């Protein structure tokens, strides 16, 4: 078995696509219409285009418990998932410059440095740099 796709729940797929591509710099990989209001929509890291795809999944709009879970994580400040960055401080400066809001500024945690931002689609996302 291989890990090909992992999912992130999003409140609005189009808005999520814009955020993940225009702000974070991911690339759209697969976009298949499934119904009037949902698509099989994945993005990949520009630096690892054959790597794991992220499915921007509209679950919170179709399944109430998913919405409750997403909101509870968000309100507690807990990241839904995390991405690796070569330099967290640099990413923090770049994303802040693009208007991205951080709930945790770059913070050293032992052997890693972390920061957490709002993806505007219902999730906190953590970026991590190995020290």
């Amino acid at each position, binding site marked *: 078995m291989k890990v090909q796709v992992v999912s992130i729940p999003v409140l609005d797929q189009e808005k999520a696509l814009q955020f993940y591509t225009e702000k974070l710099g991911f690339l759209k990989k697969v976009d298949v219409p499934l119904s009037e209001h949902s698509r099989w929509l994945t993005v990949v890291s520009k630096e690892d*285009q*054959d790597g794991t795809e992220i499915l921007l999944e509209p679950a919170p709009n179709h399944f109430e418990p998913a919405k409750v879970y997403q909101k509870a994580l968000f*309100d507690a400040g807990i990241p839904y998932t995390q991405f690796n960055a070569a330099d967290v401080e640099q990413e923090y400066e770049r994303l802040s410059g693009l208007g991205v809001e951080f709930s945790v500024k770059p913070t050293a*945690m032992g*052997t890693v440095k972390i920061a957490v931002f709002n993806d505007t689609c219902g999730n906190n996302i953590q970026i991590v740099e190995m020290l």
Partner: protein
Amino acid sequence: MTYYLKEITRIKNACYGNQGQLDTVIGTRHYINNNYDQELNLDLLSHVRFTSKFHLLRLFKRYYGQTPGQYLTDRRIAKAKEYLMAGSTVTETCFNIGFESPSSFCTLFKQRTGMTPAEFQKKSNFHKS
């Protein structure tokens, strides 16, 4: 303060209070990053950080969750991918990342990536064209 921020503070205090140990493992990781193309072993790494090799092994595993040897292999495979994608031959790549035998390099590369270095290179060239 959010629940997550409180947890970060708690974990930081509970797990990362010993700056000396952190400096040792972070320094070891940086040494591996900068010298992955050399012959590295635990004796050398512990000598560089002025510590015993068993202590270093335990510390590295505790803080990074893998041994220095496992980390070195990860680093070498990642660099091998970069060399292959940049057009180096399999043999050049093998020596550039500190392996002495192309056959053991190919075996390890296949174990870790599911394809041989040549297959990997062919696939990345196909995606580029």
